[in-house]
């Protein structure tokens, strides 16, 4: 029996599991129009209003450039926070998380599939922004600036996945959408994603340091030289530290459910 089970392990295809897990996660997400439509449209719609139509004043005439970075951050945050924060909370409460954990599913597949789905979602939003920015917003960047912006944004989903996971494992499914929105929207505003932070009073600029969205947006803005000018290492360190703390809290919550 034991040798039978050892051979079982070898014959399970991890890449096949990951493919099906991710396929199901994507199908599941894209079949919820109440989630998909606002997530795909809001960041772009806001960008059109504030970055394209009313972009004459502010940020030294660089509004369309500034906002392409910050709405990019806003856009990738949403899918990550909702997929993990709301998705995990709901599946946990429905007993579905328990069913999966009793099955021989590798737990990594559960998380990786959600990370990939969030990234694919984020990719669509960022590409929408790029096209509108380049065509209607007169955003001119070098090829390496475009690529660097895209890559930073996609990697930037990770801290929000971890933060979302902690939230999802901690709160009740029913309360999850409200709580995630209560974190998502104020954090976006206070991190300067909608209005450049330079306009804010100094006190609020200091408060922004507690938000991962602020640090990510500063890193992305620095690609175009539009950040507040702090050394990048501080933002990177802050993001890594915050992710690590959220990871530890998530791991603690996870073990409680084991």
């Amino acid at each position: 029996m034991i040798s039978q089970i050892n051979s079982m392990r070898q014959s399970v295809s991890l890449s096949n599991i990951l493919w099906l897990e991710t396929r199901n996660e994507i199908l599941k997400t894209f079949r919820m129009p109440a989630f998909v439509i606002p997530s795909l449209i809001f960041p772009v719609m806001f960008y059109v209003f504030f970055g394209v139509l009313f972009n004459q004043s502010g940020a030294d005439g660089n509004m369309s450039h500034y906002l392409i970075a910050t709405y990019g951050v806003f856009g990738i945050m949403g899918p990550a926070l909702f997929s993990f924060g709301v998705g995990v909370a709901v599946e946990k409460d429905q007993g579905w998380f328990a069913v999966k954990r009793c099955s021989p599913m590798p737990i990594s597949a559960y998380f990786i599939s959600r990370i990939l789905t969030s990234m694919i979602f984020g990719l669509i939003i960022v590409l929408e922004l790029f096209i509108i920015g380049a065509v209607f917003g007169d955003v001119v960047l070098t090829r390496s600036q475009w690529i660097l912006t895209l890559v930073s944004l996609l990697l930037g989903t990770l801290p929000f996945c971890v933060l979302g996971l902690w939230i999802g494992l901690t709160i009740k499914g029913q309360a999850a959408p409200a709580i995630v929105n209560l974190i998502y929207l104020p954090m976006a505003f206070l991190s300067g994603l909608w209005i450049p932070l330079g306009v804010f009073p100094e006190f609020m600029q200091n408060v922004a340091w507690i938000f991962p969205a602020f640090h990510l947006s500063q890193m992305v803005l620095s690609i175009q030289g539009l950040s507040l000018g702090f050394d990048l290492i501080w933002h990177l360190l802050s993001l890594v530290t915050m992710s690590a703390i959220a990871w530890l809290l998530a791991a603690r919550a996870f073990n409680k459910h084991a």
Partner: protein
Amino acid sequence: MNQNKTLIKVENVSKSFGDIKALRGVSMSLQAGQVIALLGENGAGKTTLINHLLGRETPDSGSVSIAGHTPGSYPARQTIGAVLQSAAMPETLTVKEHIELFSSYYSSPRTLTNTLEIAGLTELQNRKFKALSGGQKQRVLFAIAICGQPPIILLDEPTVGLDVQSRRQFWQCIRNLREQGTCVLLTTHYLEEADALADQVLLLNKGEIVHQGSSESLKQRLGGKRIRFTYSDPTAAFEHLPAVNHVMYRGSQIELISECAEETATALLTQYPTLSDLTIEQVSLEDAFIHFSVKDNDKELAA
């Protein structure tokens, strides 16, 4: 499949949650090809026992082994398929999409066609989970438990909330599995369900196994049939009737427990021809619990 292989071994397991003793020295073992029903009231410890087999709880004392492995470990999880109580699946995925994913977790899964057939879902494979009835949803949960062809299937109250027809369809699924030599452990409230499916019945009461054997032997131990009727003369006595081993009076409502309903009823109708509202029914699980808890109380009083 090796019929004598012990797949589940539970030895003297006790578990408390605060002051509540959920399991008290439970021991049992299960071989391949057996269907066992775990019966008990709410709070008797059925789900707690299942959770120990799945590694979701660890015993305070005693040990559990799944085909020689620690419950919850990867090889143990490859060996068990489980339908947990009241789990809901993501609603926007189809039956087929769910089964395809779960099949990928196992090394020698059934084919999709085979899984759909056993669970009776072939016609429904492209339906989304949310568009299914309660009984159909339960069959999808069953399908993802069996799709990996695990040697052990655990079903925690698989038919709660199902109508009669869905319940019978579900029983058919379980019979199909037994034919293929799978070891099935199911918990239930219904003696009827245990009767229809199980080779063996384990009766749990307050965390203790109070009976282990066939469901026939359980019913015999409880004393057969219950005879109820109305009789207007309150001074009449019924203890002397043949095969009666218990009489209860509730005003003009009389209840007899009989080891042989035919004998008792014949004598009853001859001697008391004016009685009315006569019914004869199977002794129920409820009677079993009353029986065992009365014994329990006696023990406590004696102690």
